């Protein structure tokens, strides 16, 4: 699963875009480009919220993670 994009950063960028558009004073082309970027980001975020399944891992050494499995024999 790609991890390059960061949810928080994306959301921040989207907020930024909305702010810039809100302030106005933009050429149509500029605002259209921003709009396009914003729509792309929101699509990406939506997809992420719908499809991405977070991993559950266990840190077994300084830099080694393995999949975490809960003990089956919970009393």
């Amino acid at each position, binding site marked *: 699963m790609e991890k390059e994009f960061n949810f928080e950063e994306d959301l921040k960028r989207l907020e930024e875009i909305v702010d810039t558009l809100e302030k106005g004073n*933009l050429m*149509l082309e500029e*605002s259209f480009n921003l709009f396009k970027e914003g729509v792309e980001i929101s699509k990406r975020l939506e997809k992420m919220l719908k499809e991405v399944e977070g991993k559950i891992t*266990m*840190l077994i050494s300084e830099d080694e993670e393995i999949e975490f499995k809960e*003990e089956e024999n919970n009393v």
Partner: protein
Amino acid sequence: MQLKAFSVSEVTEYIKKVMDNDIILRNVRVRGEISNLKYHSTAVYFTLKDEGAALKCVMFNDYSRSLEFTLQDGMSVIATGRITVYEKGGLYQLYVQSVQMDGIGALYIAFNKLKEKLQKEGLFDLDKKKPIPKHPRKIAVVTSPTGAVIRDIITISRRRNPTVDIMVVPVLVQGSSAADEISNALRILNKRKDIDVIIVARGGGSLEEIWPFNEEKVARSIFASRIPVVSAVGHETDFTIADFVADLRAPTPSAAAELVVPDIKVYQRELFLLKTKIMNLMKAQVLHSKKEFEGLKRALYLNNPIKKNEVLKQRVKNLKKSLTKEMLSIFNQKKNELLVLNEKLDSLSPLKVLTRGYTIVLNKEGQVITSSRKVKTSEEVGILFSDGRATAVVKEVKEDGERI
């Protein structure tokens, strides 16, 4: 019979042998209160005492280093070690290997002392607390890998937001090595770049059981953590030193998951709002631009040379129209003025006077005679009536004052 005389060394050696052979003294736990505590370069010296007796104690640094708390005068403890003779001093003492606090009261004292100390150092200062990220992608949970705590945290976290990564960092959460393991986990996590927030958790337990979270080592590791730390130890009513140092205290481990993992619905709502906003803004912008364009289009159209000619033509036509209209109105006005003047003139006409019985006298040349001095006797004059004329001869001329 005389007894054999021993040297001091001999008798001391004997006593030592007796004591060292004693199964109890070889490994003994002694309960008492610490007094005369003195730190030396290689060891800590103190006396354990109760109401009836005192016991000298020495604890070498190798052992005192692993103490989980700082020894204090007046502290009630249980010291474990062996009792033997210190030959040079001629005394017996307890060679302490470990010390544990005796009873809850002592733990409370230790708790309060550490709390006070760290508070003074500023470890609890609110302005040192790091904000908990609103949208964490990956959270680390430092806790026991088995049991209800980790299970609850995972369950709640998944339910709230299945996109968040969870990394379990397994540690012992009670016992003498727990504090070290927790500190170490925090240190390792801080080397990583992918952790947004750390939860340090443990289920409820007795004060002794949750003690690792009251240890200075853990407190300092939490304080040193670059990554925000949320503490979640025991039940709602349990407060630990870790809670005071942590950036956020969760009343329970489950609550920690609720506090740290944002509900996915919040994201969805936030995203929806932003999306709607951006759509509306774009619509408004397009509308605005369209209006602007329409205005420009109109301006361009008006400046088209062909159209411009037509426009000028129209303008000339309009001007002509209004000129005619203007002329006509001026003409009418003048006509009216003329009419009025004519009437006035008419009323002033001498002919009008003639109708009222006056006449005008004219000489032969047709000039009006306005003075008696202008006529002579026997001169023929014309008399002008309103409806005709007559010729007369002047019989007599009289000047004013000689009127008939």
